[in-house]
């Protein structure tokens, strides 16, 4: 029979197993997970960077390509972290294999953490792929390594959790594409990926500052360019607060069991 493994050890092995499973999923369906963002990024770099970028000239004192590269990387991290968790977790719910986890002794917070880590893994992986693509078109100078790493990880964490919460609420496949299409994508485009908010009229600048994605993109861009459109302290506060709140919400939803336990 089982040598009784300690609680912490069981949890750790379980957590690793969820990540292994998520990673194999990413690799198994690489044509849906890794290839499309690479293709999209390449197109963006060709169109905005090489063709249009030449006419745009400089933004905030940098080549347009240098300016949008961090934005495009971040956009990729955001959409991929979100997409990974929302589709994997909803798929598990829909295909019933979530039950494999629900009957196991893993606590709810660990299930949330495992899926979230899976989303972060995809976000970072695909972010790295797009970074490589970017390097084919432009130079990326690293000014603040810590800002780059922390902004990517926190953003990826926040949107992985977002995907989890979306999947918890979703009852069908429409409901997992609604939020990314109608909320996430517009907010990302308006979050200063392609332009500096300083280029906007006053009212639009004000409105942009209500968009959390602006802070994330700006913090990340700061790591490369050394300048930022927003207050960095505020940016980190927003990211950490969002992560904490969303993690608590995700665990609470799991406890309530709505949609997953009868």
């Amino acid at each position, binding site marked *: 029979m*089982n040598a009784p493994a300690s609680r912490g050890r069981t949890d750790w*092995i379980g957590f*690793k197993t969820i990540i292994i499973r998520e990673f*194999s999923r990413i690799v198994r369906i690489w044509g849906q997970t890794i290839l499309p963002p690479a293709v999209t990024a390449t197109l963006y770099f060709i169109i905005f960077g090489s063709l249009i970028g030449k006419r745009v000239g400089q933004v905030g004192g940098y080549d347009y390509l240098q300016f949008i590269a961090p934005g495009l990387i971040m956009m990729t991290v955001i959409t991929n972290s979100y997409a990974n968790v929302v589709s994997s977790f909803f798929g598990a719910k829909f295909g*019933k*294999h979530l039950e*494999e986890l629900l009957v196991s*002794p893993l606590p709810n917070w660990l299930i949330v953490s495992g899926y979230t880590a899976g989303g972060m893994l995809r976000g970072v992986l695909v972010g790295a792929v797009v970074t490589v693509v970017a390097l084919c078109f432009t130079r990326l100078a690293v000014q603040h390594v810590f800002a780059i790493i922390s902004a990517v990880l926190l953003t990826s964490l926040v949107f992985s959790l977002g995907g989890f919460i979306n999947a918890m609420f979703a009852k069908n496949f429409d409901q997992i594409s609604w939020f990314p299409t109608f909320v996430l994508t517009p907010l990302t485009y308006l979050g200063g990926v392609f332009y500096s908010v300083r280029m906007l009229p006053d009212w639009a600048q004000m409105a942009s500052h209500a968009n959390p994605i602006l802070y994330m993109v700006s913090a990340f861009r700061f790591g490369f360019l050394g300048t930022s459109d927003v207050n960095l302290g505020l940016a980190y506060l927003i990211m950490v607060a969002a992560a904490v709140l969303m993690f608590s919400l995700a665990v609470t939803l799991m406890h309530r069991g709505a949609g997953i336990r*009868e």
Partner: protein
Amino acid sequence: MQALVLRQLMKKYKNGVQALKGIDLAVDEGDFFALLGPNGAGKTTVIGIVTSLVNKTSGVVEVFGHDIDRELEVAKSCIGIVPQEINFNQFESVFTIVVNQAGFYGVDRPIAKQRAEKYLKQLQLWERRDSIARSLSGGMKRRLMIARALMHEPQLLILDEPTAGVDIEVRRTMWEFLRNINDQGTTIILTTHYLEEAENLCRNVAIIDHGRIIERDSMANVLRKLQKEIFVFNLRDARTTPPQLPGFRCTLPEAHTLEVEVSRGQNLNEIFGRLSAEGIEVDSMRNKVNRLEEMFIRLVDTEAKSAAAAGRTP
């Protein structure tokens, strides 16, 4: 020690269905236990609550003494579950599915891989270990779920209709396998609609109907309670009326088929004597239904009638 204790277990689903109306049940450690009942009786609901896939409305569940309200994680780690419906990821390979499940229970990966080999071999799935689960046949999928349930070597194995849609030969090897697991000390609770299976495997039985336990006894006792059996005789020559067999109730559903009800203590020789005397030749003879089946139909029937008489909706 009791492997499972249920006290006044109630479940009302959100749509208003009162699936369980106060279930009291105890299953001893080491037992091979049958949970029987017609479709919709509440078997899967009971199992769902025990494995925490369904939230109970009220009542107590203890697994090896661990109350699921207070020690959920410990209770869960004692149980292995083979659900009624397929619930593995159809796009993963057989080997991956079982190894990952072990991981969710905290089994180290190297050990999990050894066990996967052991159980997949025992369940004749080793050749298919790299197949995508979706490509397995129905019977293989059931066996995969049994292998998966055993990966953390649970003390209590619960199987919800494990042999549904499985051919006779495979079913027999599954029985053999389960008997072995039980001999090695694992408590087994099984639901099935093949009563022959329950009669063959299980030492104790509970029959549940409309969310209530209507019978709970040893298999031997339940069968002993059977007062009557119906035997079917295939006659060589066609008849239009049943022969006169004093003391027996006979019917002739078809020209060549005679059915005789035999009470306990009555003698089959008597029947043959009379039939010979009347010059009726018998080609072959069999039990009309499996004995447990008869018992079962009677119990469920009585329950429905008494419910109707008492004016409550069953």
